[in-house]
Structure formats: C-alpha cells, structure tokens
C-alpha cells in the first residue's frame, strides 16, 4: 500500500480513531469528528460510547449525522438528555474524567488553545467563524481533547485572534491558576501530522509526520517554532482500517469526500 491509496482526510480520521480507547466516552462534534468516533467504535474501541452535546448518549448511528442535532444521533440512543445535561456530564468529574473529546479549530496556538470565533478584531472581524458552540465548555472540562485542523501556517499561530477554547492558556501552570481543571487539547491532528502537548513545556511538539510528508514541509506550514526532535513517521492506515472506514462508517462518503485517485 502506498501513500496514494488513501486521502489525507482518511488518514486524519484514523489517527484520531487510534486515540480512542475501549471504555472511553467520546464527545463528538460535526463532520470528521463523529466519523473518527464511529471508526474507533468499529475498529479499535468497540466498547467506547459516542455522545453529543445535544444530549444523546451512546447513539447507534445507523447513518452518519451531518450535524450534532441530526435526528440520526437520536435513533437508538440509550438516553436523550438536554444540552444542559450533556455539559453537566462533562463538568462533573465523576463522568467527565472518562470523556475524550474531538474538536475542530480555525486557529491553534503553541499551548493548544483554540480559536473558532474570528480572524481579526472581535468587534469587526475580517472573517467570522461560528463561535464556541460547546468547544469552550468541552476544552474547559474534559481531560483529553483532540483538535482537528488543516495544516496551514496562518492556522498554527503564535497568538490567537480570539481564545475561544482554553488549552494551556499562556503555558506553565496558567490553566490551573485560571481555575480550570487539568485538560484541554492534548493533541492536534492535521492533514500532514500529529502534534502533541509536551507535559513538561506544555507546548505542542511534532510527534508524527504522515508517510510522504516531510518534516520540513510541516515546519514551513506551522506559524510557530516547533520541537521536531522526537518526530517519527506515522503508521499508515492498515487495509482493515480503510475497509471498515470506507464500507462501514461512511459508504456515501458524506464526510470523507472524494476518494483517493491512486
């Protein structure tokens, strides 16, 4: 199998799926986030539980939802709570500590803080994004968060235009000093690489580059200084992973998009 056999989007999805462990309760957003959770459940973590901020717990997902309020998240769930129930579930340490969350972002800084609000000045932005949604809440509450982002220099920035969802804030013990519990984004998965928060420096470092992507290409597409000393090549998707992802998780390619040309 060569790099041409799968798309970057497939690789991203599977890299996130691999972060999920059996027994994890997986907080899903819209799009690639729910696809990664669905893939994990079918591949490596059959006893993981998918849940949504809209309040559905252990949704069956006979079809892929295109939004977290899609009626497809309602069918066959164990229980339907409210928006408030879903966030209380994460804020409460007894249940919240078992949650792993998958979030999207428009900008990430070296400490894993996320911007999903705007580019430019908040009051009159050059580009406005949808805003926090549950992102700020989840990043505040959940010990393990995965962020998805396209790997572009303007997205990996030294300083966010707006800090929507707290990671390590300005590093060190800033997060705890602000009153937040330990947690926030610990790993960023892009179309080129996996970046992880170093427990000492509390900064993102380059952990894995995808097959066929050079470290140099990654560094050039990252807007802040990146520790690359520990980088290794990511394991490409296995044939089984790809088969299950394509045939069982998103056969309509609603989220995966166009297939690989190779």
């Amino acid at each position, binding site marked *: 199998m060569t790099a041409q056999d799968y798309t970057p989007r497939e690789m991203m999805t599977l890299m996130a799926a691999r972060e999920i462990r059996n027994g994890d309760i997986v907080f899903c957003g*819209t*799009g690639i986030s729910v696809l990664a959770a669905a893939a994990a459940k079918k591949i490596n973590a059959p006893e993981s539980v998918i849940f949504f*901020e*809209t*309040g*559905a717990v252990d949704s069956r997902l*006979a*079809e892929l939802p*295109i*939004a*977290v*309020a*899609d*009626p*497809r*998240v*309602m*069918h066959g769930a164990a229980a*339907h*709570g*409210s*928006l*408030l129930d879903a*966030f209380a579930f994460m*804020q409460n*340490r007894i249940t919240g500590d078992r949650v792993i969350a998958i979030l999207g972002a428009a900008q990430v800084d070296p400490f894993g803080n996320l911007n999903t*609000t705007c580019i430019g000045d*908040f*009051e*009159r*932005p050059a*580009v*406005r*994004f*949808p*805003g*926090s*949604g*549950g*992102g*700020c*809440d989840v990043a*505040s*509450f959940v010990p393990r968060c995965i962020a998805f982002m396209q790997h572009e220099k303007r997205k990996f920035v030294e300083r*966010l235009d*707006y*800090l*929507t*969802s*707290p990671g390590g*804030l300005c590093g060190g013990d*800033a*997060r705890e000093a*602000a*009153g*937040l*519990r330990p947690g926030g984004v610990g790993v960023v998965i892009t179309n080129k690489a996996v970046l992880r928060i170093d427990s000492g420096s509390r900064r993102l470092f380059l952990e894995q580059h995808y097959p066929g992507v050079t470290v140099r290409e990654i560094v050039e597409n990252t807007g802040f200084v990146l520790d690359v000393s520990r980088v290794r090549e990511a394991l490409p998707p296995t044939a089984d992973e790809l088969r299950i992802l394509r045939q069982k998780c998103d056969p*309509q*390619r*609603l989220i995966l998009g166009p297939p690989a040309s190779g």
Partner: protein
Amino acid sequence: MEDKSLPLGEAIDRYVRDGAHIAVGGFTLNRNPMAAIYEMIRRRIRGLHVYAHSNGTGVDELIGGGCVDRLEIAYAGNGKAAPTCIRFRKAVQEGQIAVEDYSNYMMGLRFLAGAMGVPFLPTLSGLGSDIAEKWGFSAEMRQRDPRLPDDKLITMENPFGAWGDASRVLLVPAVNPDVTLIHVQTADVMGTCRIDGLAFADIEQAKASRHVIVTCEVLAAPETLRGEPERNQIAFPHVSAVCHVPWGGYPTAVFRHYDYDAEFLRNYAAAAADDRRFREYQERWIYGVESHAALLEQVGGKRLAALTADPETGYAAHAKRG
C-alpha cells in the same frame, strides 16, 4: 379550561413587538420554529434582540430578513450546508448587527437561571478564555440598557474554599426573553407540550420567558397528553399561544415526523452568499407566499413525502443528503 389556540399570524402580532427580546428553540437543522420565523420575517418585525445557543437555520433566516439588531449567541453554524451561517457572517463582518459571544453551556445556563428565577448560575467553563475577557456589548451600552446586565460575565473566587475541586467559578447572568418561540411534536390547546427526541434547550428557554408561542405538528386532546404526564416537558402555565402548524419545522427536521431538507438548506446557503440571489430566495419562499402552508405547497407533496420519517428510525432512512 383556557383555550390558547390561535392562528400563527395573530400570535406573532400579539406577542412579538419590534425591539422584543426573543429566543427560538431547536438546534442547527433540527426542530427550529421555522413557520414562526418565516411569519416574523413576512411581517417585517424589526430591531429584535435574539438570545441563541446553536439555533442555526432559524437565526440565520431572521438575520437575513433584517429582523435582528442584537444577538447573543454561542454558535452560528449549520452542519454540512454552512459551517458558518452565511447571513450571520455577512452581518457581523459588515457591522450590521451587534454580537455578544458565549458558549453553548453558558447560554443554556443563562436560560436555566432565567427559568429558575435566580440572577446567575456558576460554571467552570470559559475561565481564562476571550469569551470571559472580550465584551461585544460595551460596558456603556450595558449600563444604559436596563434590559442588559451591567456585566457580561463575572469571575469569582469559590466562596466555599476548595469545595467541589474548584478555586474559581465563572458566573453567567440570567436571561428572561419577552417571547420564546418553539416548535414541538404535540401540544394541547391549553399549552401543554410534548417533545419527542432531544429537547435541546427548549424547555429552559420556554420557562425563562414571559410569553411562549408554541407551534405543533399535532394538536392533541388534553386527555391524551395527560395519560402520560411524565412525557410532557412544558406545562400549560408557561405558554401564551398554541398554533397548529403541520410541517412547522420545515426545512429543519422534526424527530419521528420528518427529516431536514438537505437540498433546501444547500440552496439557501448558496443563495445567502449573494445579495441578489438571496432577495430572490426570500421573494420566492417567504414574501411571495402568504403562509407556511403555501410555502409547503410550493415545495410539493412529493418532496415532502420523501422526507417523511421512517417509523423505526424517526428520520427519512436512506434519504439523499450528499
């Protein structure tokens, strides 16, 4: 027994004034009170102050309809059709509306505080974030307007010491809208409501509100709803008006009744990106029809039939959504 049923247009006329503070139910592409929203646009309501969490479809239409001056919101995206709602984005970037940002949980808590009758509720969300730091409504604007709290959010040391494993909390102020508009599966003429599937924040929005306008798929006999009172989430004392509007959530989904119309939402998003095409869209689907029933007729029975929910799953299984 007070009969609160009335035509939707009359309910809007009676309760939604220009400049009113309103909240709308639903979430992105699900159970938005679309018939009520289209009726507000048709009646050219102006100057609304809108409280929203992730009320995608409906709020974007209201903004596009020129109804909204101020918006307090957590999320303005609409699934695959519009990662950021298009009229929202345009209005914010062009400074046409004033926006204050919160998170979904904060907005949910603000409605809950309003429903509970307390001035605020605490959370551990957002400490250290720009949601807590940056204010869309200035301190001057807040002080001038008695309908706004003087502070957006307040960070406070935990008065119980380290109890609850928290050193600080963020306090979010209560919201009490003038009117909340929701669309539910079933209601009776007294106003008692039953929601199937996820309730989102509809219940808290309704209970926080001075008036509630309910549109419903099915107008049931009170005796029917009272057979299983535990399934009725909103009791009649909270409700001002009940309007029987089948397909009143269209083009958003209503669990166990019909799915969202992915094609309508996609066409909306495409039209919204261009001012001229958007005016054509509004002319055709809102101003050019006299009611929701007329809008539905224009959609056509065949297309609606394809959206009708499978009794097993509650949505239109195998519908074309790509």
